[in-house]
């Protein structure tokens, strides 16, 4: 798939659409879209790796939890994401409902003067969140609080 994500207009905050053949790929691209509101992921050296594992009750909640995890890594570990190496989402039956399990490996670098950080995402919201199927897979739309 050519286009990984696109940044959309939003009056007060950050909004983007991420594309992928499946939910995992979509979320990986959403991660790149979100960090592009703060820094240029292509300029970040893949110096360190982080693994992320989490669970949610639905794909929307999984989106919020996964992207919030990247804000956590930024604020607590000074980690700037540059690349999503691997990402997998599993749907597991759970008492008639489904649990969504995500595992990802991402790489990037610590904050340093060589990287310009020009914005701050405070939180990931459900506002205008949409997950839709398209000819090529999925489209995920997210608004983040800035």
């Amino acid at each position, binding site marked *: 798939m050519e286009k990984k994500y696109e940044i959309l207009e939003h*009056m*007060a905050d950050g909004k983007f659409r991420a594309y992928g053949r499946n939910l995992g790929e979509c979320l990986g691209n959403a991660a790149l879209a979100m960090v592009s509101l703060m820094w240029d992921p292509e300029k970040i050296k893949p110096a360190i790796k982080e693994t992320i594992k989490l669970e949610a009750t639905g794909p929307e909640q999984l989106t919020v939890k996964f992207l919030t995890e990247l804000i956590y890594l930024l604020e607590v570990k000074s980690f700037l994401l540059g690349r999503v190496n691997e990402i997998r989402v599993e749907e597991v039956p759970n008492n008639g409902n489904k649990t969504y399990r995500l595992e990802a490996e991402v790489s990037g670098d610590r904050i340093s003067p060589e990287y310009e*950080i020009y914005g701050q995402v405070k939180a990931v919201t459900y506002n205008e969140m949409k997950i839709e199927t398209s000819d090529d897979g999925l489209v995920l739309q997210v608004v983040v609080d800035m």
Partner: protein
Amino acid sequence: MDLVRINEFVWEIPKSGEMKVPARIYASEKLIELARRDQTLQQARNVACLPGIQRMSYVMPDAHQGYGFPIGGVAAFDLDEGIISPGGVGYDINCGVRLLRTDYKESDITARRKELLAEIFKEVPAGVGKGGITKLSRNVLKEILVRGAEWAVEQGYGTAEDLDRTEERGRMKDASWEFISDRAMERGIPQLGTLGAGNHFLEIQKVDEIFDVEVARAFGIHEKGQVLVMIHCGSRGLGHQIATDYIELMENKFGFKGLPDRELINAPFKSDLGQRYYKSMCAAVNYAFANRQMIAHWVRDVFAKVMGSAKGMRQIYDVCHNVAKVEKHTVNGKEKLLCVHRKGATRSFGPGRAEIPEVYRQVGQPVLIPGSMGTASYVLVGTKEAEEMSFSSTAHGAGRVMSRNEALRRFRGEQIRDELARKDVELKATSWKGVAEEASAAYKDVDEVVRVSHETRLGKLVARLVPIGVMKG
């Protein structure tokens, strides 16, 4: 949607469908046009549908679309039948403003203005991922969450008088750290005593105009050209994480089906989860008070060092812009305690309220409204009329009218710096791109916002302040 004009500045969405009360918007024609362009009015209507809402769902003059509740939304709920909602407070819990006065005139500091700003920039950590000066232990953080600015003053950051002149005296007593996640704590530890980024700023300002001499004098504002310092920031990652956590917990417990907007998720105020959120939110409020207390202290240190003295640098006031509080108000002629949500709104108590510090009780509570970066900010005073009109609330700022993308396309940070320099405003920032995103042209006209506040008497004009030095995170 029906929107009825009641008078020049008052608009109403009559009760219909699921609405339990009408929604009321305070705006001029120009401002209501802006509110119509996004989801503001629909969101105000959605809030009017929530259980236990009292009187009306109110919208302040600077309102714009938020998540669930509009920014600039004020809603009060019955404690027994009503709810509390993280979306009604916002992600940046106790994002707020502190204002310090000085005895200096602009001419006193002109020669040292650059140095003052450079020193403040050195002393006050700002920008994304910039850690604080102090490495906190988890136990100290817990104490801060419970005691707020009181803790900071005890550590030597500022004076007891600062506490008198802070909303809630810098400490919400219902705070508890017990229901705050490890994640939120971890985000809180490195960020205490930091300004943050985005729309947060620290400005050296001067008095540009005084509208109410008597009230201004009571606040310590005496003449045009007098120098002041404004600090605008909040509870940083700790507050953002608490909001995120409780939205998830409330969703998992109550589900979100039937809600017109997922971010309207809420819990009954008196339920276990409602109380857990309330106490955690109070703790984030305290963290933000401590944060601004420390920053104010460093600013005074810099003035002492550069100017030789920080004498007269008394705090005028410190207000919350994003908060839910239990307050006494009159509904249908009866006084009762309510949970008042102010999301992007400032409390605006009139004369006589016991919550106002004694020195201001005769005149009313100082209301601090920051403009966008590099434009005017305002000091207003709370009114008795606001009690009836908005549960004692008014506007909180300018509000964006242009997306960040568009601002980036139109402006360059360096160009904004040069324009400010031509207006004799010094600028220090951590990122030029960040400066472009916050260009003042991307914001509503704050002059129009405060004009409506004054005309409706939600909060009356006291003084206009303009920046002479801007530090942006």
